[in-house]
């Protein structure tokens, strides 16, 4: 079985009055919970599995910089998160986790229609498009729908055997994308909150040829990355990574990382964030040889999708900057995240960020939220789509230069 952190877990969860013959492995998200937090009521937020009508989404609460506007572009996609778009921008494919579906949203000009492409899968969160073919990654299955944008009833090709998927499920729901090298990039998260992974197949990012051949591990020590993109000029890969839980409200921050060369180690499980040695999983020189993040993105903020902006619609200052989505914390007394931030690169290789889209909570210090932003995607016209996993909706964020004469305030 998994070499979990048995000591802390046993201390927190041991139930001496029970006639259990073996210690219970706690749910993966519970692992690493210290005895001091045994009575903590913090737990992952409940998702919503039913359709939220557009009329019940308070889109006017979303706050954006001057000149930007958000509208509900599509709704009725419960659990919708990562998006892949057909070349002409008319079809958007959307993955989910628990509800097990992949949606197809068709842009009909003034409105959008939604259909289910495939369902009953185990967390088909990963979707990617290449040469007109849709790739769907569930935890235990890989399907390819050839030419789907043109023929909606296409039967999928089962490519599972080519990708060598490991068996543990936790943190193995995926974000997938094709890089500028034409390869398919696939993360394999650590199957726990904090542990020595049970085998070498976890806590890494791999790339493959589009047909699943040529497997190559390009990053190790990556706890749970569910978002990445490539710099438009340097072609370097940038990826988000979730920090560990149950190490306090201000525990190791989430990361934005740069992959300058394949083979980098990002530290998990021994070294977190900007060089914090793990309090439980110990190793001498825990942070030696570990690539540090380009930016720390906040404790428990849940960094999700990240995209470089290359469109012409937004002001020039956004050119080649990143939009990064923080779905929002659960393992923290006070919330963190629940926003989209704009990340800019400095000369020193480090990055800084400031809020871009906020207002998903009713008050910054409360977990009373109406939405949980997940992914962004740039459309051919330069507008940006933003998916909301809680409302099962996609918002369109556009920009119109304020006319000096029409300026109010």
């Amino acid at each position, binding site marked *: 079985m998994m070499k979990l952190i048995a000591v802390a877990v046993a201390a927190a969860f041991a139930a001496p*009055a029970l006639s259990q013959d073996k210690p219970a492995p706690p749910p993966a998200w519970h692992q690493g919970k210290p005895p001091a937090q045994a009575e*903590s*009521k913090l737990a992952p937020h409940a998702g919503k*599995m*039913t*359709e939220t009508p557009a009329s019940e989404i308070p889109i006017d609460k979303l706050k954006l910089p001057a000149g930007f506007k958000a509208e509900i572009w599509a709704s009725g996609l419960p659990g919708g998160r990562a998006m892949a778009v057909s070349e002409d921008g008319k079809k958007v494919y959307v993955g989910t986790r628990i509800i097990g579906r992949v949606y197809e949203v068709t842009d009909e000009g003034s409105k959008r229609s939604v259909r289910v492409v495939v369902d009953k899968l185990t967390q088909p969160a990963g979707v990617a498009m290449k040469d007109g073919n849709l790739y769907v990654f569930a935890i235990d299955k890989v399907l390819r729908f050839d030419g789907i944008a043109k023929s909606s009833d296409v039967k999928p090709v089962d490519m599972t055997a080519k990708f060598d998927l490991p068996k543990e499920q936790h943190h193995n729901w995926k974000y997938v994308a094709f890089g500028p090298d034409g390869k398919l990039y696939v993360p394999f998260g650590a199957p726990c909150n904090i542990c020595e992974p049970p085998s070498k197949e976890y806590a890494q990012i791999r790339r493959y040829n589009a047909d699943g051949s040529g497997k190559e591990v390009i990053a190790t020590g990556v706890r749970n990355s569910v978002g990445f993109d490539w710099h438009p000029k340097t072609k370097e890969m940038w990826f988000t990574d979730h920090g560990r839980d149950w190490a306090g409200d201000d525990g190791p921050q989430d990361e934005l990382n740069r992959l300058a060369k394949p083979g980098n180690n990002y530290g998990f499980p021994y070294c977190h964030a900007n060089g914090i040695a793990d309090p439980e999983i110990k190793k001498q020189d825990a942070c030696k040889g570990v690539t540090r993040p380009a930016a720390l993105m906040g404790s428990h903020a849940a960094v999700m999708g990240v995209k470089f902006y290359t469109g012409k619609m937004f002001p020039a200052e956004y050119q080649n900057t990143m939009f990064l989505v923080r779905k929002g914390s659960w393992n923290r007394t006070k919330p963190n995240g629940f926003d989209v931030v704009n990340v800019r690169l400095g000369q020193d290789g480090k990055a800084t960020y400031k809020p871009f889209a906020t207002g998903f909570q009713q008050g910054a210090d409360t977990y009373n939220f109406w939405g949980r932003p997940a992914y962004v995607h740039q459309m051919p016209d330069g507008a940006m789509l933003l998916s909301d996993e809680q409302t099962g909706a996609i918002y369109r964020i556009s920009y119109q230069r304020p006319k000096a004469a029409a300026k109010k305030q």
Partner: protein
Amino acid sequence: MLRKGRWAILLTAFFSVVVFSQERIQLCATCHGPDGNSPDPKIPSIAGQPKLFIETQLVLIREELRKSELMLPVVRGMKDPEIIRLADHFSKLPSRGMESGNPDAALMKAGAERAQALRCGICHTSDFGGQKQVPRLAAQREAYLEAEMRAYRDGKRTGGDTIMAATLYGVSDADIRALAHFLSRSKAPAPAR
């Protein structure tokens, strides 16, 4: 004329929703009890369950992610707005204990201890009334609780979060029986959470 026609359509739509929902509620009541408190020990009471919990379970069963041969024909093809209406209806009904006979003192004591040791109250709340996607356990049918806890432990009830399987991992049949006895006889808290 046009205006009249539109009213007719609206009225028809309104009444078909109401009538249709009433029919569905009747159908649920056939097994789960007219007031949502189940007369059948193997079938769960759904009165006063958290709304989000009922919605989530109906979706999981409809999507065949939670396997239920009995429920699947009922929810197959059911649209989300109706699931939400049904969940809203049953979540607002008061729940009451349906077990008869005197509680077994030894089982009650053992069950209370085990519920404490397993920290059921952290998610199911301290009065076992449930919250959000987490079900009410208090005043649930004993035989149903026992069967479902065993199914979780043995990997036969899947589809949602893995926390229940992990919590009950290695828990003995006797302990599960005690938990079911204790929880089924815990006082039902007020609904509408």
